[in-house]
């Protein structure tokens, strides 16, 4: 026994001793050490590749695109994927009952506008593409849609909203937090205006739920969209809040078995719904702490970058802003080339090269950003699992590569020589 104890102690010693970098990435989020030396892009034999390569993945700084599953959410979902597999609509046995009970946590329904005589819809120019696309298809069906412009800060002008409401306006749709620039719209004031003018108010809260406090009664919200995978829940599930008093009537998009009070037919996917519910619960608990921590990290990121680099512009209002979504424009450096340089960090850009057309982001255009700055923008996403180490690394690499790319930029050179770029007649191509 003494021998075994000794062996165990020796074994402990062996595993703890500093050696080559740890090969198992923790939860796929961390990058232990990054090898900066140019590697051969030709895939080498796995056995010959250095051990460290197996554990290396880019840092994830794109939480607005999607979020990793919170481990607590996975814990909540697993039983429903393995054990409690009943159909929640089965009335006659325990499997169905237990599944239904789990489902009751997060109600789900996908709704459509009630096509009454009111044919006018108001939205903003900076909505998410899915909302703009839906509005476009409504226009094709005969609705009239007003796209409200936004100010330079990204926030809509309340007076313009009031002026735009007409007798036949049925719905106003304004997103709570913008996914590209992180700007918060004045939801409470908009809700007030809409309820006083008897117009339904819908808000796309996908980026806001679980991150900032939302009260549908205080803010007079009638309809609210929630997305599972933006709040550390599973992909493939979302929810819509539909107010009961005063009643909001909606017409179902898909017909069928009449589930979800006839508003969304189709068997409810219990594991996904349980995951969404768990994600919301966890978010409720963690909201204050997350917000404080993310604000601190965001401040650090912005301060460090602004201190080390000149000519950096933050897009969007600095006050009415969700801290976890930072959109910065690095003048004289093109966004996609910077993303390519930051290959160890997963980021997103508002530049054209990342979209199929040569047009830069419409959100940046709507807030009046100069076109060349729009091509130079990068979005940094800080989330619940982002560490200070990751932020520091990102800042360091970003500063290093922006400096390098500016050395390669003819625009930077011209500005250093004192030439005003706006005075030049560029060739078109």
């Amino acid at each position, binding site marked *: 026994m003494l021998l075994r104890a000794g062996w165990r102690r020796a074994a402990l010693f062996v595993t703890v001793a500093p050696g080559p970098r740890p090969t198992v990435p923790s939860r796929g989020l961390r990058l232990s050490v990054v090898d900066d030396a140019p590697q051969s*892009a*030709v895939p080498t034999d796995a056995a010959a590749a250095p051990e460290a390569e197996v554990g290396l993945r880019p840092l994830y700084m794109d939480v607005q695109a999607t979020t990793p599953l919170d481990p607590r959410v996975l814990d909540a979902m697993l039983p429903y994927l393995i054990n409690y597999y009943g159909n929640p609509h089965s009335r006659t046995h325990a499997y169905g009952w237990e599944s239904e009970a789990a489902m009751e946590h997060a109600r789900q329904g996908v709704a459509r506008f009630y096509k009454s005589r009111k044919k006018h819809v108001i939205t903003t120019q900076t909505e998410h593409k899915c909302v703009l696309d839906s509005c476009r298809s409504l226009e094709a069906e005969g609705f009239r849609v007003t796209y409200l412009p936004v100010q330079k800060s990204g926030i809509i002008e309340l007076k313009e909203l009031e002026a735009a409401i007409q007798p036949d306006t049925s719905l106003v749709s304004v997103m709570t937090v913008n996914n590209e620039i992180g700007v918060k719209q004045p939801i409470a004031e908009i809700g007030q205006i809409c309820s006083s003018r008897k117009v339904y108010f819908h808000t796309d809260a996908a980026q806001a739920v679980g991150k900032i406090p939302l009260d549908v009664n205080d803010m007079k919200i009638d309809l609210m969209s929630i997305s599972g995978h933006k709040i550390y829940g599973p992909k493939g599930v979302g929810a819509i809040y539909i107010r009961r008093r005063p009643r909001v009537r909606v017409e179902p998009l898909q017909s069928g078995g009449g589930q979800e009070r006839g508003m969304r037919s189709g068997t409810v996917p219990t594991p996904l719904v349980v995951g969404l519910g768990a994600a919301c619960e966890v978010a409720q608990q963690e909201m204050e702490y997350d917000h404080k921590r993310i604000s601190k990290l965001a401040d650090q990121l912005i301060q460090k970058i602004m201190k080390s680099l000149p000519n950096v512009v933050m897009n969007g209002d600095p006050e009415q802003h969700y801290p976890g979504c930072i959109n910065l424009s690095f003048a004289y450096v093109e966004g996609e080339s910077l993303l*390519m*340089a930051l290959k160890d960090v997963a980021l997103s850009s508002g530049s*054209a090269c990342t979209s199929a057309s*040569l047009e830069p982001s419409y959100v940046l255009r709507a807030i009046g950003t100069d076109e060349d700055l729009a091509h130079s923008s990068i979005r940094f996403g800080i989330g619940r699992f982002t560490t200070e180490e990751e932020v520091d690394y990102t800042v360091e690499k970003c500063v290093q590569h922006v400096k390098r790319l500016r050395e390669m930029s003819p625009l930077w050179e011209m500005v250093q020589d004192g030439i005003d770029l706006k005075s*030049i007649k560029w060739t078109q*191509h």
Partner: protein
Amino acid sequence: MAVAGAGRLRRAASALLLQSPRLPARELSAPARLYHKKVVDHYENPRNVGSLDKTSKNVGTGLVGAPACGDVMKLQIQVDEKGKIVDARFKTFGCGSAIASSSLATEWVKGKTVEEALTIKNTDIAKELCLPPVKLHCSMLAEDAIKAALADYKLKQEPKKGDAEKK
């Protein structure tokens, strides 16, 4: 012994579960995957970044593109008395493909005469870098930059033609 075995098992399990172990780390980041390795190479190790003295009579400067389009290339060539391009430098504001196209352009013009350099086509640049269709305009801009630099040089060689600056 058991520890080492367990470690190997753990590594194998994690490799299987978490990701494909056959891909080197770099290929996991999205922009790199969309780029051919030649483009990445030109980007990481750009050849001939810099500037030549634009007031010199032997230097031709071509500035093409527009910041509003997200692509600006400046290509400079230095030509000797025999009409051969002895040096070339570039600076680019643009995506990885644009940087690679202009870097390749400077590599190709070196050692050519002014007439030979005019024959460089954007299709050759695109083929060499395996540019996808959406990035073909980068190679076109590189060709334009070469032609603009050569035109500027020719203008400067005109005897006392006044302002040789191309702006």
